[in-house]
Each structure stands twice: as structure tokens, then as C-alpha cells.
């Protein structure tokens, strides 16, 4: 069934001037024609808002959709760390090539060279654009932009706005979008969720959007459809994604023939606040920087771990000798600073062995007491205190820690109710980004002509693992600087297509399909809530397709997901009515799509007999537990064609060619 012919449409020429040349030769749409061309943009995150604003500025008639009450709420807003750009403002040897190289290497060589190079190339323009929009990046006393190093790279290329870089960048894009809305170039549809894609004569020509207030199924036509609908991390139920993040728009496209690429590439972040109970709705990320000063441990004795879980003992009752600093033990060279995936898997192992320290069993300590003591002593030295008391040292040390991580400690205390200066933090890994997504070519167009996908919703730039501070970069690169050009290749052929008639049979059929899906869910009249199915799906995917995977587990997971799907369609309980604001219905529709996606993910993970990036197959590891990549057989993109829930998806392969980098094994030992 393999199909090796999937073509990324990468232009020829040298890597370094490929994009410049291509951009200069792209077919253009004349200004007078742009006024007649409509484009639908679904989603108002960094990618969607920046694309809609830019397309509006260019003169297209843009229609933009979000299920939120305002375009400013998308989950890009929650990104903390920063945004990379190859500005080389530090004079530390950064360059476009170096950013390209770091990104492709960080992605474990599972991304397309040309796309990644283009991303690195336009990264600098993003910073210029954002500053011009008034994004208040951190500055130095001289008034110029500050940078920090992020994600273990050797240069400082990350621009940041305190711990709220995503918020500030999104507001910049939102403001640009607002300007276009005021000018009438963009028509904004809030509280509208795309629930069907309309394909006419083989081209994406519109969407069916459910008005979330009235329940009405509205038909919207356009010459092209752009999906900027984010990632599918919520397939795990618990993730750092927002509650309403979903895969429905993407899966509706997949149902209409678009390919889902590399869905098993998901990223786990090691330092999140662990789940405290069954009721818990989401997980909160704690910045990775905490691992610079925190030591990760679990009790060495199982009975101590149990006592802590039962609330009989606290961390302070465990003597130093009975603590297992497992990262330091297993990775003496890097210790607590091993990469995200390694740290995450080690925590999972410790908990699987029965040493977890929260009631669910899934949590480890992140302890700052050593750092507090160290900083306290050095501070006492600076202050000239010759023989400071223990209490004084701790007091001084806590102050230093507060200066460095005060806001994070405060957030932790707010959520957990525990003082992290006195008791070690409790952390556990959680899903927070998905590298996989809709397959797109160099133009960011899916295999369905006229259907584009940008930002986290596509698969394009991060390969099997995303580097820190690269998600914001990719979303904005796609939206501001790539899609607005490349969409011309499709639209220039469509200038004589008249405005789409939403009464065409294709629209009616799509609306009927959506209505049938909704009616079908209401007709089940079962006993279990959509939420409970979602929770169970999450458990299956997390267990078998999470931090580490095995062929056996994945096979089992597939059976379980299928059984869950059957149960879902037999026993779903859906309150309320279709033609009203009904969050339960929204949820049920989303869960149905998550189940289908879950199965494709499992199939993909099963197919990829290697370990790379976020995909760790236990069968494929070196004797000392390192991921074993198999470039000879798996240097390709897996693009899955969905043939309905009752059939196996079909694999299409896009072979990856590396002409400018040498494939190396990641090493940190």
C-alpha cells in the first residue's frame, strides 16, 4: 500500500536562496483581482491572526473564524518562554544556517530541509514586525533588545517578553487583525466552530460553521480555506493545552481527503504540575528553567513513597540517604539538565516502579533545598557574614530563588496550595505540543487543492521534536511571511472563479452531513458523558502512545480505541438541544474526532519502527537506553489517508532528503 510519490513541491536550487528565488517567481494575483477573491481563515492564534491580518492587508476578502468569544483568546497566548530568531544581536556566531541546523537536528532529522531553512530565514523579519507592532520585548539598559539562551542551544537567540511572550505576540497579531476588521478587509466570525469542510470540483471551497450561540449550521464559501487550528494535544485528555483546543477542523479536512502527517510525534514537557485527582481538567506547565536549580528525586524505598502518597510522611521526613536522585544517578554528565524527552521518560520509569509521590502515583519531587543552601551561603559570603546561622543562610537563599523564579513559585503555590520554598515541588511530565499535523507541501497547501494549513496544525517544520521557543516562530512565520505569498500559487489560477455560491449542492451536502453527525449523537441517548469518554481515550493514548511505546502496547491501544469508539456511539449521553448554546454538544463532536485521530496516531506509532524525538519505541533503543533512530528505513514523513473509521488508514510516504546536513545521533551522555 506504500505510496512513495508524495511530493513536497520543494523548488530547486541552493538551500540558502531557494526561498528568495521562489518568492520572486511566485505567480501573483493582481490587486484588482484580490478584491474579488475570498479566503477563509479558521483560527485566530498566532498563525491564523497573522495570516488573516496579512491577507487582509494585501487586499483579499478574508473571513476569519474562531470558536472563542474574541480572536484574542487562542491558546498561543499561553506560551511562556520566547521566540527564536537568527538576529545574531549577541554577536555569538548565530546565523540563519545555525538556526536551521539546530532546528533540524533538534527535530531528529524528520523534517523537510527547505521548510526549516525558510523558517530560519524569515525568523528575523518576525522580530522586526513584532517590534513595529509594539510588542514590548525585554530590553537592556541601552534600550536594545535582550536575548536569552533557551532549550540547550549554544547561542542566545531567544527574544522574550517576561514569561508572557506568547501573549504579547498574539496581542500584536490580534491588533493587526483588529485593524483589518475595522477597515472591512476581514470579516470576523466569533463563536463559530468549523465542523465540515466543503470540497467542490476537487478544491476546498468553503466550510460549514456551527454558530455556537444559536446552533445554526452556516455555509461559508471562499476561493481557498486556511486552517490555523492548532495542535491535537488534547487527545491525551490531560495536557497543557487549553480546554477547548481540538482537532475537529483538521479531522474534518482529513475526512475529506487531506493527509494527517506524523501524528505520533508529540512532545512531552517534563516539568508540569501533576494531576491531583480524577476531577482534574488540565495540567499547568512550569517553566523548564526550574531544572537549572532544582534536583529531581523520588524516595528510594517503596514504603516511603507509599507513606508520602498516603499523606503519612512528607518529603522532609525522608533522609538524604533514602532519596534517589534518579537523573543524577542515571545521567551523571548532564544530571538534572538532560533533554525534555529523557527527563520525562526517567520520571515515568521511577513512577512505574512504584516510587511516585502524589496520590495518583504519578509525580516526582523537584527540590530546591540544595540550591537555596548554596545560594544562601554565597550570599552570606558577599554580605561578609562570617558564621551565619542555618536559618539566615536559608533566608538569604530563598531570597535569591525568589528573585529568579518568584512568579513561578507563586503560581505553583496558587495551584497546589503548598509552599515550594519549604516543601519540594511535585512535578510530572505532560503533553504540550504536537509536531504532527496536516501534511502540507512547500506552499503550506495540503494534498487537497485550495486547503492550506499553518502553525501547529500542520506537520511541517519541527520533525519529531520541537525546540524550545520555536513554536511561536513557526506560527508567525507561516502567517506573516510564508502563506500570504505561497497562497498566490493556488489563487492565481482561480482569478476568474466567481464568488462561491453557498447554495451549491456541495454546500448543502456538507451541511447535511454535519447535521446528520449531530443528530446521530443526540439519538444515542446513552448513559455516559462525552467528558468521560474523552478521559478514557486520554488514558489509553497516554498509557500506550505517550512517553514510551511498544508494538504490543500500541496493538492493544488500537483495539481499545476501537472498542471505545463503539461504546461512544452506543452509550453517549448528550443533554440539551442542537439549536442552542450547548457546550456538551461541542464537546461530544470534538471527542468523536479525537477518537478517530487517536487511532491514526496509534497506527502511525506502530508503523514507525524506530525511536526519534518525541516518539520512543522501547524496542528501538541502544543498550544504555538511548533512542535508536533508523535513518535507512524511516527517513520519511508518514502521511495517512483516512478511509473511514472501519478501515485501515493508508500510508503515503514523503521521502526526506538531506543535502545540507549530516545525520547524527543526538548525544548528551
Amino acid at each position, binding site marked *: 500500500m506504500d505510496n512513495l510519490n508524495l511530493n513536497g513541491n520543494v523548488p530547486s536550487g541552493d538551500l540558502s536562496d531557494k526561498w528568495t528565488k521562489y518568492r520572486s517567481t511566485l505567480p501573483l494575483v493582481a490587486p484588482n483581482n484580490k478584491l474579488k477573491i475570498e479566503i477563509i481563515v479558521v483560527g485566530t492564534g498566532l498563525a491564523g491572526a*497573522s495570516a488573516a491580518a*496579512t491577507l487582509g*492587508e494585501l487586499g483579499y476578502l478574508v473571513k476569519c473564524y474562531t470558536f*472563542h*468569544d*474574541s480572536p*484574542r*483568546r*487562542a*491558546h498561543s*497566548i*499561553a506560551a511562556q518562554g520566547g521566540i527564536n530568531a537568527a538576529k545574531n*544581536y549577541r554577536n555569538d556566531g548565530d546565523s540563519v544556517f545555525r538556526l536551521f541546523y539546530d532546528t533540524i537536528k533538534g527535530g531528529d532529522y524528520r523534517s523537510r530541509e527547505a521548510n526549516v531553512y525558510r523558517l530560519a530565514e524569515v525568523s528575523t*523579519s518576525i522580530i*522586526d*514586525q513584532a*517590534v*513595529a*507592532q*509594539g510588542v*514590548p*520585548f525585554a*530590553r537592556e539598559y541601552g*534600550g*536594545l*533588545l535582550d536575548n536569552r539562551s533557551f532549550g540547550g542551544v549554544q547561542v542566545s537567540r531567544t527574544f522574550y517578553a*517576561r514569561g*508572557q511572550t506568547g*501573549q*504579547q505576540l498574539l496581542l500584536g497579531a*490580534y*491588533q*493587526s487583525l*483588529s*485593524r483589518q476588521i475595522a477597515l472591512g478587509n476581514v470579516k*470576523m466570525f466569533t463563536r463559530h466552530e468549523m465542523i465540515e469542510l466543503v470540497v467542490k470540483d476537487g478544491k476546498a471551497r468553503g466550510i460549514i460553521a456551527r454558530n455556537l*450561540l444559536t446552533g445554526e449550521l452556516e455555509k461559508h464559501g471562499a476561493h481557498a480555506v486556511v486552517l490555523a487550528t492548532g495542535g491535537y494535544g488534547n487527545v491525551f485528555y490531560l495536557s*497543557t493545552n*487549553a*480546554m477547548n483546543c481540538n482537532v475537529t477542523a483538521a479531522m474534518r479536512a482529513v475526512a475529506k481527503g487531506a493527509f494527517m502527517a506524523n501524528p505520533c510525534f508529540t512532545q512531552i514537557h517534563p516539568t508540569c504540575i501533576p494531576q*491531583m*485527582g480524577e*476531577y*482534574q*481538567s488540565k495540567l*499547568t506547565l512550569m517553566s523548564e528553567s526550574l531544572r537549572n536549580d532544582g534536583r529531581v528525586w523520588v524516595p528510594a524505598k517503596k514504603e516511603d513513597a507509599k507513606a508520602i502518597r498516603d499523606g503519612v510522611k512528607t518529603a522532609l521526613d525522608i533522609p538524604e540517604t533514602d532519596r534517589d536522585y534518579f537523573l543524577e544517578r542515571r545521567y551523571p554528565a548532564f544530571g538534572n539538565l538532560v533533554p525534555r524527552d529523557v527527563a520525562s521518560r526517567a520520571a515515568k520509569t521511577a513512577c512505574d516502579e512504584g516510587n511516585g509521590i502524589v496520590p495518583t502515583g504519578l509525580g516526582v519531587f523537584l527540590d530546591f533545598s540544595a540550591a537555596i543552601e548554596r545560594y544562601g551561603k554565597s550570599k552570606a559570603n558577599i554580605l561578609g557574614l562570617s558564621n551565619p546561622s542555618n536559618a539566615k543562610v536559608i533566608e538569604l537563599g530563598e531570597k535569591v530563588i525568589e528573585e529568579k523564579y518568584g512568579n513561578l513559585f507563586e*503560581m505553583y503555590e*496558587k*495551584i*497546589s*496550595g503548598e509552599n515550594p520554598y519549604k516543601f519540594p515541588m511535585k512535578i510530572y511530565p505532560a503533553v504540550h505540543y504536537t509536531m504532527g499535523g496536516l501534511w502540507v507541501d512547500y506552499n503550506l497547501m495540503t494534498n487537497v487543492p485550495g486547503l492550506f494549513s499553518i502553525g501547529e496544525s500542520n506537520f511541517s517544520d519541527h520533525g519529531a521534536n520541537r525546540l524550545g521557543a520555536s513554536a511561536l516562530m513557526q506560527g508567525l512565520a507561516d502567517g*506573516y*511571511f510564508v502563506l500570504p505569498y505561497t497562497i498566490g500559487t493556488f489563487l492565481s489560477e482561480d482569478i476568474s472563479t466567481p464568488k462561491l455560491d453557498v447554495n451549491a449542492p456541495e454546500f448543502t451536502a456538507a451541511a447535511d452531513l454535519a447535521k446528520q453527525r449531530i443528530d446521530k449523537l443526540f439519538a444515542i441517548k446513552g448513559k455516559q*458523558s462525552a467528558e468521560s469518554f474523552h478521559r478514557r481515550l486520554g488514558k489509553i493514548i497516554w498509557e500506550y502512545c505517550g512517553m514510551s511505546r511498544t508494538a504490543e502496547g500500541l496493538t492493544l491501544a488500537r483495539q481499545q480505541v476501537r472498542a471505545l469508539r463503539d461504546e461512544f456511539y452506543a452509550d453517549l*449521553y448528550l*443533554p*440539551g438541544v442542537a439549536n442552542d*448554546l450547548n*457546550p*456538551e454538544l461541542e464537546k461530544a463532536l470534538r471527542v468523536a474526532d479525537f477518537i478517530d485521530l487517536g487511532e491514526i496516531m496509534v497506527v502511525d506509532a506502530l508503523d514507525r519502527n524506530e525511536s526519534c524525538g518525541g516518539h520512543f519505541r522501547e524496542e528501538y533503543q541502544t543498550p544504555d537506553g538511548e533512542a535508536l533512530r533508523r535513518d535507512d528505513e524511516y527517513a520519511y514523513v508518514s502521511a495517512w489517508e483516512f478511509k473511514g473509521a472501519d478501515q485501515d488508514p493508508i500510508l503515503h510516504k514523503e521521502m526526506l532528503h538531506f543535502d545540507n546536513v549530516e545525520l547524527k545521533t543526538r548525544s548528551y551522555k
Partner: protein
Amino acid sequence: MKLTLKIWRQPSQNVKGKFETYSLDNVSEHMSFLEMLDVLNEKLSFEQKVPIAFEHDCREGICGTCSLVINGQPHGPLQGTTTCQLHMRNFKDGETIVIEPYRASAFPVLKDLSVDRGALDRIIQAGGFISVSTGQAQDANAIPIEKDVASHAFDAATCIGCGACVAACPNSSAMLFTSAKVAHLALLPQGKVEAQKRVLNMVRQMDLENFGNCSNITACEAECPKGISVSNIALMNREFLSASFSSNDAN
């Protein structure tokens, strides 16, 4: 914990609402306030009752979707905290909690605890931006900005647009929201170019949306989950005064 909840129920915008009382047992103090409502909703669902509509999304205090007035306070009793980050340990066992939607004419109730805050978007659309199209920008380091000024602008820019300021204000004024954006952009050299036009248009739109007038009560600042200062309002007043008397806009 056992709680009694008095919650505002209103089927739709044009139907009269009223309080309904619910009791909820086995509430864990580790639950967030919204998780407590999730549990109540799940319970209501199975009793074949309509779940309570409330808005939420990121549940980490940054998207500004969640709202609610809890015991008379927008986002509840904890200062500097959104409803989604409020945890049940801040309440007492056996307590009665009154949950209401934001009240303001400019924020009509859509259903139960959901309100329409579109007016805030329209204020931004009136001028809360810098008119720079993609690709027009010069190098990011071409304009140095004093660190303090950038930091001050940042403080204003942290607004999450949740509307708690309007809800808290006895006059339902949107001055804190509007001034936060005016201040953010007016403080930066990039934003100064169109500062006069911006403040005139944004204030005009704010007035059109039927928000009340500021009488410097400062409840907005006290309830703002991001602690945005009323000094931004003074800055906007200043900007508006000078723009009114010196701009080239003869209207």
C-alpha cells in the same frame, strides 16, 4: 467539603433569569473553582438537567475567557487571580457561594454565566493598534527604547481582556481596559506616531458602547487579575486632553 451554590440561571439573553440553589458534596480543596463547576455540571447532566453555561479556556490565567462574579467579586476573593486559578481551598466547608455573571449593560448575558464582551474587541478595532502592515518594519533594534519605558508599557500590555474591570466598577466603566491599551502603545516610540488619533477613536468607541464614566473608585485595579494600575487611566485622560485640543482632527 460540602458547599451550597447559588448560581444565576438565565436560558438566553431575552429571558428573565433567577438564582437557583445547588448543593455539592465531596468537593476537594485541591479542585480549581471551574473544576468544581465541571463536577456540578456532570451531576446536573445525569439528573437530566441543563448544565450551567460558563466560559473558560486556558485554565492558566492568561486567555481572559473565564469570568464570573463570586460572592460579589469578579474572579473571586483572591487578588491578582483569575477564576480558573482560584482553588477551593480558599473557601470554607459548608460555605454558601453566590455565583453571578458580570453585570454591565455593555455585556449582555447570553446564557447563565456567559456574557458578550464583544464591546471590548470593538474598542481595540477603533484604534488599539499600530498601523504597520506586514513587511514594512525596519530592523527591530533601529529604535532603542528605555528599559523602564518598555517595562512600563509591558505592565499595561499584560491586560488579558477579561472585563473584570467593567464588572467590578459600580459605573461599569471600561476606562481601565481602554487606558491599558492606550498607555501600552502611547508609551512606545512606535506607537506615538498615531497616538492622538488612537486615543480619540478609542474613547469615542468606548462611549458608543454605553460603558459608564470613571469616577476613580479604583475597584477596577483591585479586581484586575493582572494588577493593571489606574495610573493608566490618568495617562489616557492626559492623552485625550492633549489630543482633543491639539490634534488636526477638526471634529
